[in-house]
Structure formats: structure tokens, C-alpha cells
């Protein structure tokens, strides 16, 4: 009986704990570890992800990677970065894309894919949960939500 009770208690604690951990996982802006840039300002991050000036401080063109759906981390990222909803962000990018001003960022279906792609692309930049950090990635900015 005690065994079953322990199992139920552990299960009930663990199930809600998993998404809670994911939601509280801080979002970090990462680049390839070989990129000489060490830190970025919030303004520089905004410039890149809003397509205003897509370059690092040393003048190198940045390659921004984003997520392609309404994922929670994407919502949290843009809300924390510029205080705008995903609908507002998509409206913003619609004007840029469909007016022909610039191409949209390359998009992936998961944060893990974003992390993997940045590991293999020297000038790439993206946002991922801190839990996905590896030694091939470098944190240049951490969002305070």
C-alpha cells in the first residue's frame, strides 16, 4: 500500500513539475562558440531578431534562426524582448517580408534543432532554453522575463 501511495504521490508531484521546469527554464541568446563576440546588448539582439540591423558588433553579418510555430518559448522570447505578442510579431514580419524589404529568418520546428544548427554555423544566432546549452554554444545575452 505504501509503495502504491508513494508512486501516486511521486507521479502527481512529477507530472506538473516537468512543464513547470520547462516554463521556468530561462531563455538565452546563443551563438556559435567559435564566434569572437562575447556579449551583446538588448538593443543589438532586438536589431537582429526584428530585422533592423542583422549584424554583430564587429560588422559580421548575423544569421538569425527562429522557430516556425506558436511555441511557448517563441511567445516568451518576443514578449520579453520587445513586449509584443506573436500576432504582433507576425504582422510586423508580414510587412517586411511581403513588401520585399528582406527575407525572413530561417525557421526550425524545435529549440533542439535551433541549437544543433547554431553549433554548425559560425555566424548563427538564436534563442534556446538554457537547459539546451552545450560547450559548442556561447551565451551572449540572457533574457529577464
Amino acid at each position: 500500500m505504501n509503495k502504491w501511495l508513494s508512486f501516486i504521490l511521486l507521479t502527481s508531484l512529477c507530472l506538473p513539475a516537468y512543464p513547470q521546469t520547462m516554463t521556468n527554464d530561462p531563455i538565452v541568446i546563443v551563438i556559435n562558440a567559435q564566434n569572437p563576440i562575447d556579449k551583446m546588448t538588448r538593443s543589438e539582439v532586438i536589431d537582429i531578431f526584428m530585422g533592423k540591423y542583422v549584424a554583430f558588433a564587429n560588422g559580421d553579418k548575423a544569421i538569425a534562426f527562429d522557430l516556425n510555430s506558436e511555441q511557448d518559448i517563441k511567445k516568451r522570447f518576443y514578449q520579453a524582448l520587445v513586449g509584443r505578442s506573436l500576432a504582433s510579431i507576425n504582422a510586423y514580419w508580414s510587412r517586411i517580408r511581403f513588401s520585399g524589404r528582406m527575407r525572413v529568418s530561417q525557421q526550425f520546428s524545435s529549440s533542439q534543432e535551433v541549437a544543433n544548427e547554431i553549433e554548425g554555423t559560425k555566424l548563427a544566432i538564436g534563442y534556446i532554453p538554457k537547459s539546451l546549452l552545450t560547450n559548442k554554444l556561447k551565451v551572449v545575452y540572457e533574457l529577464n522575463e
Partner: protein
Amino acid sequence: MLKYYTLTSVLLLVNFACIANDDWQYSGFGTLGLTLSDSDRYGYRKDISVNEGVYSGDVDFLAHSLLGLQVEKKITDNIDFTSQAVLRKVTEPSLSKYFTLAFLRYSPSVNWSFRLGRTAPDIFFITDYRDINIAHTWAAVPGEVYGLIPYRHIDGLDITYTTQFLDSTFSSKIFTGVSDGDIAYGDNSEPIDLDSILGLSLTLDHTNWIVQAKHTHTKLANETLTNQYLIDFINTVPEFIWEDAEQFSNDLRLKNKKTTYSSISTQAYLSDFILTAEVARITSDSTSIPKLKSGYASIAYQFNSLTFYSVYAFTDSPNFKFNEENVDPSLIPELVAAIESSSNYFASNQKTFSLGCRWDLSANVAANFQWKNTDIDYDGDTLWINTSGQSPAETVNTYMLNVSFAL
């Protein structure tokens, strides 16, 4: 000729690229729009290229509905191609009118960008995405500024320089080329071509606000038939009746006359509020196009997925009154009436107050309702279809319900 050459060249280059690699990106946008109006005299239209209006009792689904498809191709790290076709109601349809973008872009560095081919006109703040309904707060962009521009593309070249400036991004763009469109007079429409377009667009873009200044000058490349008939008629008046008739008719000519478009605009995101304002000005060396000032101010409040907004917009232009000294108007009353009617065609004078609500149904789909209350001044109905022969002052209510998407 240049425009066709440019377009053909671009498309041929793209075909070559297509054979080399079939890695294309596809995207699209669209709007299904319902428009209602309450006037029997003044028919609502989106801009002056449209020759059919929405009147009282009409249930219109064409004025704002459209479907766009865009294809993009990265050819090399520095060169890409974009093409866009928009299916919408156009006056005098032709394949060319459905293609709004077809250009090659060369971006040798983050600072410089060169585009060759067909691009969207960057004449006023949102001229280049005015048909992308999901991209702006309103159900319809203010017609007082954008309804006066019948052009949807420029065939030519533009160069953009972007740099960081005082924690902001500054970009300057110069563009040149040719364009064409239609101008509808009542039920009829006439093609109008623009030559020697030369424009400058300056943008200062900070995190939550943007300021733009734009100036474009161009020459009209053709004479509209309506204007030509009037000029020919004036030139038949004997010199002993109207001494300066020829000079007067030359001033009316559109062909080879310089026309300028200028605008200053701003948009700011302040917490849950979006403020947008623009003032614009159109001038011409032709007396057929009077000086026109226009503008709008908009405030929007975002509450979760809803955005409530209000817009005030206006046009202001002097009405032409025939007061030539060397002619007695009573001798040529029909001609004087025709001159005044023609010269006042572009003299738009109206004020619109709008209320609306946008509902973001998802990140990519939005519904938008807008009520426009427009006070049209006497003889100020440029933006409307009016076949009654008279242009009295009137207040018109227009209701728009759109569902827009971008994928």
C-alpha cells in the same frame, strides 16, 4: 520599354537560377473583405485606380479581398530573388498588373543592398505594404493618403544603405525607375505612366518607434485622353475670344510635367498603445493636379488579442475656379465648366473619423472591423466614384469587415 526589359531580364535570370537549384521558399497572404456603404451618390473605392464603387445597398466582397503568393530564392549568400503575384480586383486586367514584385537583390554587406527589377513603391509610409492587411492595425489604410496613389510597383533599381546611429538604425534608400497604373474617372479609367521616378527614403528606427521622411519626384509620361480632349477643345477657341488659350492649355498638360510626393511619418509602440501619424503632400507643375495636403493620426490600444483603434484622416486641396482675365467666361460657359470639372478632379477635400477593432484569431489570422465616417466637401470627391454629375457635400458611412492571413 525599360520596365519590360528589366522585368524580362530578372525573370530570365531567375529561370536560370531555378534550373541550378530548386530550393524555393513559398509564402502567402490574403484578405476576405466585406464592404458596405450608405451613400447613393458616392461609391466607396479603395483608391483612384478603381472604377467601380460600393453604394448604399451593395454587399461588396471585392473592394478589399485579395490573395497573394510570394516565392523567394536564395541564390548565393549575397544574392536572392523575390517574386510576388497578387490576385485582386484590378481595372483593365493584364498579367503585369498582378505581378507586384520580381526583383534580384544583391547584399554585399550588412550595410548595402541593391535591388533590380520590380519593387513596391516606397512613396509614403506604408505604400509598399498597403495591400498586406494583416500587417497593419486597420481594416483599410487611410484612403486620404494612400487612395491617391494608383501605382503598385516600380520597375527599376534601388540602393539602400543601413547603419547604426545613436542606438538606433538609420537607413537611406534611393530608388529610380518607371511605373504605370490607372486613374478612373467615374465608370471610365485611363492608363497613366510615370517616367524618371527618383526618390529618397530616410528611416530612423529605434526599438519601439520609427520616423520616416520620403520625397519622390517623377514625370508623367502620357496625356490622359480626357485631358487631351479638353486641351484640344481649348485650342479651338479663337484668339480674339481667349488670347492666352494655348498657354492655359499647356499648363493643363500632364505629359512631361513634374509631380512630387513628400511625406513625414512616425509610429511608436508605447506599452499597450500604438501611435501612428503621417502628413503627406503632392505637388505638380501641371495645373490639372492641384497641390494636395493629406494626413492621418491613429491611436490603437492593445488588450490581449484585441486592438481597438481610432483614426482621423484628411485631404486638403484648393478648388480650381476659372478666373482668367483675358477671356469672358460667359462666351464659353460649357468649356469653363469642363475645365473646372477636370481641374478639380484631383482636388480631394474630405475628413474621415474611424473606429475599429482588430481581433487576432491566431498568430497568423486576424479579423478586423472598421467604421469610417467621411465628410466629403463640395467638389472634393476625388476618392469616390460619382457618376451623378454633381458633387455636393455629403457625409458617408463605410463599414468594413475583413479576415486576413499571412502564412
